[in-house]
């Protein structure tokens, strides 16, 4: 309730405030100018502005633009699935589980191993949907176990420590899992087996790759299921109660430990699912696969408003679209060359921007009582 260390309403007063205002204005200006330049470029690729700033501008065709948005949405759905884990853990325990991205990587790796084994046995080709279901289930189980063991070994003993301590521990866990995968499985990128044509090729009617449709549909369905679980089951209510106030929840007879384990389990399962989807979409996985998507997924959770399930998904999709569309729509018309290299920078910039302009995210945060400062 009490706002601490923040300025009261009104104009900026300190140097830092002025600087922040300047940054906000500058960021919005860049976005606005970029967008306008893009629109102008679309209307007339040889306009005077573009001739000065970006002489070889061609603009984007409608087809290209749609492709960018679709791939952004698909990617964003996976970020959203991972973000659920960050969001739920932050909502309940109030710390960033930095290692959650690695759980996603474990899921993708598990999928890679099992799908290759299935391909060796010939099932992958003969019964693709069945094998897919199988690897999803296996990967979800493995990821759930990973997340639960992680909680048990590394986080439970730190319950109640100053909040940066579990964060630092989770960095260690992330490092450990990443490098364990490196020494066990080797540094080379590992491929998923070939997928059927309907997954690879564009759908005749929608003109979207099957894999992307699959990702979006599966994410939407699992999101709906998760929402139902959290809002309407006893276990879900326990989660929300613990998120509200763990101590009171314990007094009300809720087993806090079990609830926290459940939160980790659900987050892990979602990350496992995302891992498989990632594998199907990109068909290649390394021990570093989890790092960047992990951080972007956390950004997604923040952008959507941490502790908020729908927000995580919305944040994921916005980050996905922003990083896919942003460089070409905003930076390229401003004359920045080689924009595709700046995808990740755009994703991080979006996180920073959201925290600067609206720190509680799109949907507002839901945090444990002691964190609402």
């Amino acid at each position, binding site marked *: 309730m009490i706002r*601490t*260390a*923040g300025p009261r309403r009104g104009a900026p007063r*300190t140097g*830092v405030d002025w*600087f*922040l205002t300047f*940054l906000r204005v500058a960021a919005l200006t860049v976005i606005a100018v970029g967008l306008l330049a893009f629109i102008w470029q679309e209307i007339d690729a040889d306009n005077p502005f573009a001739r000065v700033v970006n002489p070889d501008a061609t603009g984007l065709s409608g087809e290209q633009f749609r492709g960018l948005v679709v791939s952004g949405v698909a990617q964003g759905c996976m970020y959203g699935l991972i973000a659920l884990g960050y969001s739920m853990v932050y909502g309940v325990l109030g*710390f*960033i589980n930095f290692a959650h991205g690695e759980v996603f990587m474990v899921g993708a790796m598990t999928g*890679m*191993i099992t799908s*290759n*084994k299935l391909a060796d046995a010939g099932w992958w080709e003969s019964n693709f949907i069945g094998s897919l279901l199988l690897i999803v289930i296996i990967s979800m189980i493995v990821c759930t176990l990973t997340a639960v063991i992680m909680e048990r*070994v*590394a986080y439970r*003993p*730190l319950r109640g*420590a100053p*909040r*940066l*301590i*579990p*964060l*630092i*521990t989770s*960095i*260690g*866990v*992330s*490092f*450990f*899992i*990443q*490098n*364990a995968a*490196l*020494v*066990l*499985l*080797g540094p080379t990128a*590992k491929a998923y087996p070939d997928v059927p044509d309907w997954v690879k090729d564009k759908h005749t009617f929608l003109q979207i790759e099957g894999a992307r449709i699959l990702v979006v549909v599966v994410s939407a369905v699992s999101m709906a299921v998760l929402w139902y679980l959290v809002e309407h089951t006893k276990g879900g209510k326990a989660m929300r109660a613990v998120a509200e106030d763990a101590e009171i929840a314990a007094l009300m007879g809720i087993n806090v430990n079990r609830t926290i384990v459940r939160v980790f389990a659900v987050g892990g399962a979602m990350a496992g699912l995302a891992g498989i989807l990632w594998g199907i979409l990109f068909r290649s996985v390394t021990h570093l696969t989890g790092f960047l998507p992990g*951080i972007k997924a*956390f*950004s997604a959770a*923040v952008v959507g408003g941490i502790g908020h399930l729908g927000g995580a998904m919305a944040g994921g999709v916005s980050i996905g679209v922003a990083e896919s569309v942003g460089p070409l729509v905003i930076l390229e018309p401003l004359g920045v*060359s*080689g*924009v595709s*290299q*700046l995808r*990740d*920078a755009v994703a*991080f*910039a979006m*996180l*920073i921007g959201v*925290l600067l302009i609206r*720190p509680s995210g799109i949907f507002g945060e839901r945090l444990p009582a002691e964190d609402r*400062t």
Partner: protein
Amino acid sequence: MTADEQPSEAAPGVTDAASGAAGAQAHEHETPQAPPRPLLAQDWRRLLRMGAVGATAQMFLALSNMPLRLDDRLLIKPILSFGYLSLLFVPFVVGNRVGHQIKREGIPTHAAGAHEVIGGAVAGAVAGAGVSLMALLLANFDLREPLVNWSPQLADLLAFGNSTGFAVFIWLLLGGLSGAAGGAMRLLRPRIRRVAVTMILTVGLISVMETLVTDLAEGMRFEWLTDRVYARRGGVNWNWALILAAVSGLVSVLARGRVRRTRERIASLEGASRNRANLGLIALTGALLVILPMFTGKLTNELLANVGLFVLLALGLNVVVGLAGILDLGYVAFFAVGSYTAAVLTAATSPRINPELPWFVALIFVVGITGLVGLFIGAPVIRMRGDYLAIVTLGFGEIIRLLFLSDWLSGWFGGSQGIVRIPGAGIFGLASVDGTDPRAVFYLVLAFCALTIYISWRLERSRLGRAWMAVREDETVAEAMGINTVNVKLMAFVVGAVLGSFSGAIFSAKVGSVFPNSFLILVSIVILVVVIFGGMGSIPGVIAGSAVLIGVLGGPRQPGLLAEFSEYKLLIYGALLIWMMLARPEGLIPSVRRSRELHQQEMAQDAWLREQLDEEANGGGSLRASAATS
């Protein structure tokens, strides 16, 4: 490693503390009502559980190929290599833990201590069974597809060249023995245990530091000794291992009391003379560091220079994390900016601007620009919650690397080609320090380390340092006590940035080229591990942390003394970070304040007792008074 186990032993069990000092005493020594338990009446579930954890660890170690890869590095010739040590270590630790737990329960047996040894042996054997299982699996299945280290050589190593059956048997036995030894460690009296630990550590240390010692021996002309101690292809000869153990044990027995007494005497000195003693100690260390490199070869000096660079980086991060309590995961950004600024200003090959300034002149700009970048990054993040700040700084660190890497700015910074042929650091026309002369680099690094230590030491004891601490403790209250928290935190950020830029400038002169890939987030994390391992907020801790971690295991790209470990060092860093946070969050050499913070309850109890005694002594304090009135 066993030495690190000790602190946990000192901490009494929760129940002990609760039942009061007298209760704990009785609990420990005489429990006449309970009859002694038979030897096999163990808590089998616990033994199996601990053993199973150990077995899992063993299988992981085997599959990580550590035994095979490290087999080349002999510790004691011809008995022990690091490869086998890595496998024997786990049962030992498991046995040790089990022994510790059994001892803490304090249940009497017929033969004192037998319980611990047997428990340790059983748990160790279960852990060893992990290797046995591994040997069986290796012999009968082929999982080379996902697991890259699934090889016949590994099977061969596990079986000591014999059959699989032998491997199964021998690892049960070895695990049991190692576990029993671990359990037995708990039985030794503290004094004897300390001697034993000293002996083991001495031999281990001398073996690990082989390159350093032989290098030093060459410089100081006592190769005749090292030639005997070390085998030709590495490792300490077994007879010399025994001699070393004996000597160190003897020294430990003779000197132990004295070391402690000296330390106590220095601690009890008052004001000025204590300062003098400390100053003397610092001067001695400094002199040693100046003289030592004169006798060592290129390799050692290279190592020392690398360690020094990380000391410099870690000290900078220490100001931000340790003093002001801001978790900055993008610290590498300042290192990168420092390096690139120095490179652009000094190198003739820099693409856009190339003023070819002398290094020291460039340094002024480096400091200025990095300070500005610190302000620029710091200002938006400084009001954020601590954990958001961590992630956002990480994002900034990555953005800065991506910008250096991008085609967009390649006209300025060379993109992925980086900037090459950077001249060395000219020192007022006297000398030029570059990578070809690691000794000179080391001296340069040493000078900057001294400067950095001085800066952080002075700042810590100033108005600014106190304000940092206050902000770390409780930001709201600090603000209410009139501290402008935003400015103070920003100041920490900028000071950290400037200190980080020193090492950046030295780095670019030392290596002679800068590439974006030298500045991965990984570097930030490694520096963080160093700071946490050493002890947040503690200058000696941070130095020791870098010396141990970077010196022995190596930095992100720099080899350490155990070059064989390079594949595993990041894995070890990760594990170490988790373990430190769980077991010893205050670090190797904790700052007084941090350890207070983490052991508040124990200290508060002591102080409470003291206060009560105090009040009693003053003739009826609050206790009695309140009793009278209520």
